[in-house]
């Protein structure tokens, strides 16, 4: 492959193959490994408009980072790490960075499949969306955010994740746990590592959606690409699904805040210099690194419990509108995280893989995939923007060779909230979405405008890149028919 050089975002990129670009070592002072980006020409044009490539280079300065600082095609500018970034670090020098996970620890998506198709749903679509919006509280903090499930034992949730809700309150099923990444529990969790303020912020938020880009979407399976995988996942053309996008709420935000500050204050003691304070970090094996991993795991368990509680509220909404039998047969397809750091085996190495706006995508026959899906690969859900489409993918072999078992997590923003508000009227957008057959329930028109489809890259393009790169393959395309926005 010949090297093609071009100037992007003031950094020189060279093209390694049709979907992979590289920022060479030296492009940003202190880089220990190159930066590598999966993209095509159209996505590159959008990516170069912000500072995401500089942030990709900054991540390459982290002590102990191996192979490359990686970015998925949905990359956009974040704080410290770019959103859509992947960094794997290795002991003895390797660090763990709370900013490499982000404030919304274990933000992720859960897909539920209903036992009926969109034609059978018929005129009950709007009442169902309305019922879901009534039952699932939205917003971060303040009114509407303190309507979490009653009676949850927070310490057990932090230790056990959704299993605590199942055992204590009868929320969810054993099958739900089986069909959740890591079984919905990171065993390294230690509730004692979570600060009192973090507990206070999260205590009443289990089962609440949150604001920003969090949502709950009613969808219909529009197209099947891989019949065998779709059959394994229980998806058929026309089938109604519900996609839940939420995370660890105020608890996770506070855990990240606590540890970014703690590590920032101790960087000099570890002899670490960084180009951005938000990259603050500590050696994986240090007391600070271990404490963060224990707190982060607790927050991740909390997030899985949060999505489990939301799913339970969805099932109750389904029962009210479509009947108890339909609710009972509403099955969880899978639940996958896209903001987390995990200790994983890659080759002969044990690595700390940071995924910030990136999704684990293990290929067929990987031992961590649930038995029901092991022959087809791990399910991955890629939400598009409101009004476009979402995808169900499966992990592919290329992800293990090229991206530490990782693929993209969404469409990726391309316009700032300010910019999109200048060009989009929230009320008009609501009317347009409804004219397109999408029932909308949103707290504010401002929030709706900020998440307008034009604020995001083309999800079809993003998914096509990861498929051509061999990281994941398309299984199904889902079109929205209703949305509840935080």
């Amino acid at each position, binding site marked *: 492959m010949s090297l093609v050089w071009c100037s992007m975002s003031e950094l020189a990129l060279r093209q390694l193959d049709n979907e992979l670009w590289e920022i060479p070592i030296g492009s940003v002072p202190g880089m220990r490994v190159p930066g590598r980006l999966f993209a095509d020409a159209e996505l590159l044009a959008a990516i170069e408009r912000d500072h995401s490539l500089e942030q990709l280079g900054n991540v390459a300065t982290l002590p102990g980072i191996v192979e490359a600082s990686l970015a998925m095609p949905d990359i956009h500018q974040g704080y410290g790490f770019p959103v859509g970034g992947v960094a794997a670090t290795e002991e003895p020098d390797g660090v763990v960075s709370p900013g490499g996970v982000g404030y919304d620890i274990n933000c992720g998506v859960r897909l539920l499949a209903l036992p009926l198709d969109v034609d059978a749903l018929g005129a009950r679509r709007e009442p169902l969306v309305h019922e879901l919006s009534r039952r699932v509280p939205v917003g*971060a*903090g*303040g*009114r509407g955010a303190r309507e979490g499930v009653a009676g949850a034992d927070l310490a057990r949730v932090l230790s056990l994740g959704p299993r605590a809700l199942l055992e204590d309150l009868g929320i969810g099923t054993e099958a739900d746990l089986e069909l959740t990444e890591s079984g919905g529990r990171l065993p390294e969790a230690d509730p004692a590592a979570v600060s009192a303020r973090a507990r206070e912020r999260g205590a009443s938020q289990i089962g609440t959606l949150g604001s920003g880009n969090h949502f709950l979407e009613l969808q219909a399976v529009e197209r099947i690409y891989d019949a065998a995988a779709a059959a394994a996942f229980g998806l058929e053309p026309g089938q109604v699904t519900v996609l839940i996008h939420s995370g660890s709420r105020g608890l996770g*935000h506070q855990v990240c805040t606590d540890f970014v500050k703690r590590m920032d*204050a101790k960087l000099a003691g570890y002899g670490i210099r960084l180009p951005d304070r938000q990259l*603050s970090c500590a050696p994986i094996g240090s*007391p600070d690194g271990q404490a963060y991993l224990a707190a982060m795991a607790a927050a991740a368990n909390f997030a899985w419990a949060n999505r489990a509680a939301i799913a339970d509220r969805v099932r109750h909404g389904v029962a009210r509108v479509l009947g108890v039998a339909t609710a009972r047969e509403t099955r969880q397809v899978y639940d996958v995280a896209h903001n987390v750091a995990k200790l994983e085996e890659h080759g002969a190495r044990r690595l700390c893989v940071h995924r910030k706006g990136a999704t684990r995508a293990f290929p067929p026959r990987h031992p961590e995939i649930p038995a029901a899906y092991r022959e087809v690969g791990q399910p991955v859900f890629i939400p598009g923007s409101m009004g476009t489409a979402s995808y169900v993918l499966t992990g592919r072999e290329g992800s293990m060779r090229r991206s530490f078992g990782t693929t993209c997590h969404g469409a990726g923003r391309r316009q700032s909230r*300010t910019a999109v508000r200048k060009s989009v009227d929230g009320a008009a957008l609501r009317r347009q979405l409804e004219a397109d057959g999408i029932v909308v329930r949103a707290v504010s028109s401002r929030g709706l405008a900020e998440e307008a489809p034009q604020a995001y890259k083309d999800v079809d393009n993003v998914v096509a890149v990861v498929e051509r790169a061999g990281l994941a393959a398309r299984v199904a395309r889902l079109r929205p028919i209703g949305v509840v926005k935080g």
Partner: protein
Amino acid sequence: MYRWAEHTAEVELQIEAHSEREVFADALAALTDLLGGPRAAGDAAPVRRTVTVPPEPVLDCPPAGPRRDRAALLAGWLEELVFLGESEGFVATGLADADLRPDGLSATVEGVLGAPPPLVKAVTLHGLMFEPGGPGYVARVVLDV
């Protein structure tokens, strides 16, 4: 004086002020503006809150000591105001009193209790800045929204 700068996913606050105290007052005003101002509280009666930065030590976090880190102090100030908004619906409307020390800040904040919109998740250290410049001091903070 403050302004909101473009950022793809988050919001970036930029401040120019004549004094350090004014930077903190401007940051309060900016956050209040972002959260919808006193309108978010309707006609609620005014209340006051005492804000101390840094707050009580968090877990194993070392005490700040005499280190003069105004940028971290500014981030901590905004964190406390965001937390008050999230935990009790406090909407700050003004800075009644401020004791700005080399290692911290104690302030009395005027405000009202209401239901501010839930916009800010966290205050980041990304690109954090607080240094002499402009009319006296310039500062920058990126908020995760």
